[in-house]
């Protein structure tokens, strides 16, 4: 109890605000964020406001409303006209066929009726006959409609086939382009193998790649450099394959490797950027974590708007940084 009272007194003294502890803390903690960080945040704040203003300007412009309405009306009208033009023939032909067939059936049915009326039959017979006729009409009309629908569907199929025939060349062109892109990618890889025979081409961002395999391959490259080391001797490492440690960030403006106030732009290898699944896996797995990155150090690569002093391009491997591994 006495101990609690003592603690409460200590707390109350501390809360008055000028305790020795507070003085010691203030004396020992005067760190501030870096100038670079200040600039980055303030510029983001300004950019956001500017973009808000542009949006507002656009929405408040006097011409926006009438132009929007005019655009909607024009689009709607042209859509309706186009639809009518495309479907017009089929719509007209369908009822024609139906009317023709139905009429033929009804005429056929009505022939015995006229003969029988001339034979002066009784009212009962007439009613019976009418009932029979109704039954036949009921059966015949759906059959006639069925025939008309079949005819309509046949025409529709033919139309579809004609459209497909028209699209076929475009499809073939797309296929050709795809094949060409695959051939180009293969050619690039062969070229890379020839130019950089020392580069272990087996290291790629492959979702099936084993972590141990990555570690082994990355350890074949001599040392893990800090960004600071790289930038200090930038001309020595320019164009060289390096392994660098830092916190990796996948950002909208570009990927970045950071360590303290030092930073590098990061460009992943072509094979990863094209493989959206692998890219997404790496992004989810490593964003914001301390990693080792292997790629080519490039003084010319300064990222989006030249925001970085240099960069790592053709990044072929990323593994979590762990002191124990090294």
């Amino acid at each position, binding site marked *: 109890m006495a101990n609690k009272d003592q603690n409460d007194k200590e707390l109350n003294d501390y809360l008055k605000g000028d305790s020795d*502890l507070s003085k010691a803390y203030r004396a020992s*903690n*005067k760190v*501030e964020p870096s100038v670079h960080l200040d600039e980055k945040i303030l510029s983001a704040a300004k950019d956001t406001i500017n973009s808000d203003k542009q949006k507002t300007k656009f929405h408040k412009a006097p011409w926006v409303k009438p132009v929007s309405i005019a655009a909607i009306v024009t689009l709607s009208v042209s859509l309706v006209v186009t639809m009518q033009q495309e479907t017009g023939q089929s719509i007209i032909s369908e009822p024609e066929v139906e009317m023709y067939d139905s009429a033929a059936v009804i005429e056929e049915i009505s022939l015995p009726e006229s003969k029988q009326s001339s034979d002066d039959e009784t009212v009962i017979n007439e009613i019976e006959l009418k009932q029979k006729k109704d039954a036949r009409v009921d059966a015949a009309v759906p059959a006639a409609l069925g025939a008309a629908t079949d005819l309509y569907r046949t025409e529709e199929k033919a139309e579809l086939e004609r459209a497909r025939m028209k699209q076929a060349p475009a499809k073939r062109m797309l296929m050709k382009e795809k094949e060409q892109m695959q051939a180009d990618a293969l050619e690039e890889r062969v070229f890379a193998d020839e130019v950089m025979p020392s580069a272990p081409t087996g290291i790629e961002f492959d979702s099936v790649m084993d972590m141990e395999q990555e570690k082994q391959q990355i350890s074949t490259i001599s040392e893990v450099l800090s960004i600071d080391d790289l930038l200090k001797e930038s001309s020595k490492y320019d164009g060289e394959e390096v392994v660098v440690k830092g916190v990796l960030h996948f950002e909208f403006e570009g990927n970045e490797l950071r360590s303290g106030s030092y930073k590098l732009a990061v460009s992943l290898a072509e094979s990863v950027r094209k493989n959206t699944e692998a890219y997404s896996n790496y992004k989810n797995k490593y964003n914001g974590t301390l990693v080792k990155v292997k790629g080519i150090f490039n003084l010319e690569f300064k990222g989006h708007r030249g925001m970085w002093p240099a960069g790592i391009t053709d990044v072929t491997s990323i593994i979590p940084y762990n002191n124990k591994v090294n």
Partner: protein
Amino acid sequence: MDNDVSDENLMMSYASGDAAAFEILYARHKGAIYRYMLNLCRNEAIAEELFQEVWMKLINARENYQVKAKFTTYLYKLAHNQYIDHYRKQNVRIVEDQSVEIDDVIQEQSSKNNPEKQAQTNQTINRLTELLASLPNEQREIFLLREETGMSIPDLAETLGINHEAAKSRLRYAISKLRTGLNNE
């Protein structure tokens, strides 16, 4: 405008398109938020990252900002949540691997800012840094919040999402341990 306008009004001005208001707001709180993050994470790179994310969240929240509480409480709630999210996502070992970095940062910057005082304060810096590091996360965080913002117990409780008694108890333990540690130096 600097000293007269409240944080809440500055934030409202920023939300309505005044970028200069944000600059004042940022200048007022950047040091405290940064030190709070740095002392919590004990890793400069991660602290910078979280610091940046807190401000980006504030920028993105400008349109929905309403004065329901003190701005400081709002801002540090963002910071606290950012730290908790990071703590949950990250492997704690990575943070511990880099634990020596913070001492270097503090000493390096102290020597830059106050070279003449460095010799006198070095010992206290080291001891207090060690003691802070040895505190449980919850106690360290409430002590840092109190030191950096001067918040009252109810505000500390609201920011951290705990009750009044828990806040009081955490702070009491923290200062008791730190005082004992410094006195035994």
